[in-house]
């Protein structure tokens, strides 16, 4: 028989989101908080992010990934959060019953509330349709990052990177510092996909050749990558333009072409997902469509900064603690919807009148625009980019001015 545990709040995943959610749940009065992590230690992907730039907002300090993880891990342990390491959650039911597996056996965990904090995974080769052969030497940037920074192994010495997400740009610099050559960073859009600071510090400062409005059209090599062909793309259709191909000899292709919230367990539990974010549809306490199941961090929507992951997950942790103590927000509330120019908004629903922060992303880069939230809030932005999340803080006063059941968030040029 599986061993059974009863807890107030169970948090699945101990990356930056899970650690913050668990800590805040405990601080908000939940008595038994259990943090479940599949790896050997707390921190998730932060351990392979050995570069700095973490914690500028949350701690007001410039930390590396492992340092940032360490701060939260200490807080979690000091607060008396229970931790299960090397434990994989294999099932989650709508009644908040978790099945988990570890070297100790199979566990059944009954939780009054659950926080989903599984993070995200990387988009793979076939999701961006790269033609050619299938040799060794093709990695997602995050997998390569783990190889280099945790395992001490280099994928190769002549590197081409497709996509200019943050992990890809950081790996360009990391591999250069390891003595490899980064021959090209190839981006299909007319601008870089990740943060400006990474574009400057990882690409420009190291004179990495950046090919905007280009893509990889063929992988060469049967057993190991021997070369890739890249081509310019049409600005509107993003299809490769014949005659613009060039072939670059290389031994490695890294992919940094987007992240996908990892919601397999959420789906199992019947949590309603938002096709725009790939994560759960939540209210302002980050409660999903299934009562008592909350979500925070990259499992909900892919964030730009880890600091934002932590802050958002704390909201989910607090909500989960309140739910476990029998405090429930009622009512349908107001639906928040993305309008013109907006890719998504989180949360998708507001039930109460407490101050709320909306996280949103725009569809395209634009200059001199206004962001409007119904008739209650608006602000001018000099420049907006899809890679950088916008935060809209709504006060109790502003929320009380909402009329109707729906609030549209729009971009005005």
């Amino acid at each position, binding site marked *: *028989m*599986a061993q059974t545990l009863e807890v107030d709040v169970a948090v699945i995943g101990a990356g930056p989101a899970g650690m913050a959610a668990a800590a805040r749940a405990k601080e908000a009065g939940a008595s038994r908080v259990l943090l479940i992590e599949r790896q050997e230690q707390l921190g998730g992907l932060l351990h392979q992010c050995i570069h700095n730039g973490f914690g500028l907002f949350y701690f007001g300090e410039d930390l590396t990934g492992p340092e940032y993880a360490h701060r939260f891990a200490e807080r979690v342990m000091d607060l008396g959060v229970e931790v299960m390491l090397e434990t994989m959650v294999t099932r989650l039911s709508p009644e908040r019953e978790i099945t988990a*597996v570890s070297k100790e056996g*199979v566990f059944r965990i009954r939780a009054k509330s659950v926080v989903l904090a599984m993070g995200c995974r*990387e988009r*793979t080769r076939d999701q961006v349709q790269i033609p050619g052969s299938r040799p060794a030497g093709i990695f997602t940037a995050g*997998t390569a990052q783990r190889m*280099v920074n945790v395992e001490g*192994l280099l994928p190769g010495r002549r590197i081409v990177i497709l996509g200019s997400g943050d992990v890809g740009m950081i790996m360009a610099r990391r591999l250069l510092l390891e003595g*490899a050559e980064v021959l090209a960073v190839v981006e299909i859009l007319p601008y870089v996909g990740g943060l400006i600071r990474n574009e400057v510090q990882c690409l420009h400062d190291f004179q990495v050749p950046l090919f905007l409005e280009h893509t990889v059209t063929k992988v060469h090599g049967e057993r190991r990558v021997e070369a890739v062909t890249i081509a310019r793309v049409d600005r509107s259709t993003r299809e490769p333009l014949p005659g613009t191909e060039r072939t670059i000899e290389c031994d490695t292709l890294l992919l940094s072409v987007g992240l996908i919230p990892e919601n397999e367990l959420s789906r199992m539990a019947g949590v309603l997902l938002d096709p725009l974010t790939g994560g759960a549809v939540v209210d302002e306490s980050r409660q999903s469509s299934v009562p008592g199941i909350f979500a925070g961090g990259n499992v909900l929507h892919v964030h730009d900064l880890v600091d934002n992951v932590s802050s958002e997950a704390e909201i989910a942790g607090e909500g989960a603690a309140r739910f476990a103590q029998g405090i429930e927000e009622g009512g349908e509330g107001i639906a928040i919807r993305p309008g013109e120019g907006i890719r998504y908004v989180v949360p998708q629903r507001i039930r109460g009148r407490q101050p709320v922060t909306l996280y949103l992303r725009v569809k395209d880069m634009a200059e001199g625009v206004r962001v409007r939230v119904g008739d209650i809030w608006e602000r001018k932005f000099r420049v907006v980019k899809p890679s950088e999340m916008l935060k809209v803080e709504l006060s109790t006063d502003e929320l009380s001015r909402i009329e109707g059941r729906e609030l549209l968030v729009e971009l005005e040029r």
Partner: protein
Amino acid sequence: MAWLETEVLIVGGGVLGTAVARELSRYRVDVALVEKEVDFGWGSTKANMCIVCQGADALEFRPEYRRSRLVWDSVPLMEPLCRELDVPFRRIGELTLIRNSEEMAKYQKLKGRAEKVGFDRLRFIGRDELFEMEPHLNRNVVGALYNPDIAVVDPVRLAIALAENARENGVKTFLETEVEGITSKGEEFEVQTTQGLVKSRFIVNAAGLQVDRVARFLGADDFVLYPVKGYIGVLDKNVGELVRHEIHMRPEAPGQMNILCPSVYGNPFFGIVMCLARKGDNSITRRMMDIALVNLRKILPEVSEREVIHSFAGFMMFRNWELGWHECVVQPSRKVPRFINVCIGYPGVSAAPATAKEVVRLLEQEGLKLEENPHFNPSRKAPPVFSELPESEQEELIRKEPRYGHVICRCETVTEAEVIEAIRRGATTLDGVKFRTRAGMGRCQGGYCTPRVVKILARELGISEKEVTKKGKGSPVLLYRSKELLSGADT
């Protein structure tokens, strides 16, 4: 000095070669099998849709063709074989969508032909019944031809199981052993391999894509084969929840098939877009990808390209480059005695059980003495698949070997102990582990498990992580250690 002497040498460790090996192990015969790749089933066996055809339900079925007969004769053999060898086999049924009266007429003819040879399982169903069975299909159809018998298998695991069972019954198998030349010396063949000289009285040439090359060493290539490349895509399990049957639609252009087929594991396959190609060129083109997706949406309109988690090209050998029908090669060479060529083309997996029996009959006809092996053990046990076990058995496994509780592949829930067991049974590469355990076959395509599997492979094989390959020689996964490019001669 011969490295190996044997009565029968089988060249090729695909599903046909291993099936012949296993069939021969029922008799007291010295049998050896050589395979050039690092594992069994890595040629055409691994690159197809895993469908077990029922012979008479195919448009190209003609009872007078040997190929049709071998598929037909294999139908009653496949399920018991999979049961004996503990290989996944799932009967899912097939729905051939019908869009107009012209298609209806074709399928009526097919049904009549099938009934003439005694296959009476085909049945026409109307829209209501069809959409009750498969609610997500394109509405632009008038009905379907239903074949409840179509099944799917895991052909690579079948080849591995056949090889393991053959070995258990006395067959010697050699991986990474490529044939480089064959000469005929009186009553014996001398086969030059990358491991050394093999002397053998009989040769079964089941070299798949290389079948003509191997035959040519002796001038035994009394046939012409055309290598046809086919593109197949793999979809996320989420799409697998939308369809339960194999769905077939008549292709609109030559060189295409339009099939959506759930696998035994839940990830559906779709395709096939075909073209003549140079052997060994497994590359896929954007055009193939686009055509396959367009065709797929004719079956299942709501699929997004984001649901495609993997794609690959497989090769089939055709006797004639004319789709629809073709004959196979299962015959003794007309020029060289005691030399049997075996090549089905497609569907090789479906035809394997009867083909193996046919090859044994041909060997006997060529003079091989067959005496029953009284110790033949037909059954083989597959290693445990943790994720498929009931919880009590999972607990039991973990108690005996705690590494069954260490999940290293998040998408397919593969445990460390399963990887170790796969290595113990012969996996030596990343792809070897992948095909044997499914670690790396899920939606993240090895993003999570690759570093972990590399580590386990290095540890269990006693090699450095740099020596771990994706698919054997020339395919190292990682080229350097950290700091290696900064030191010594490189700076």
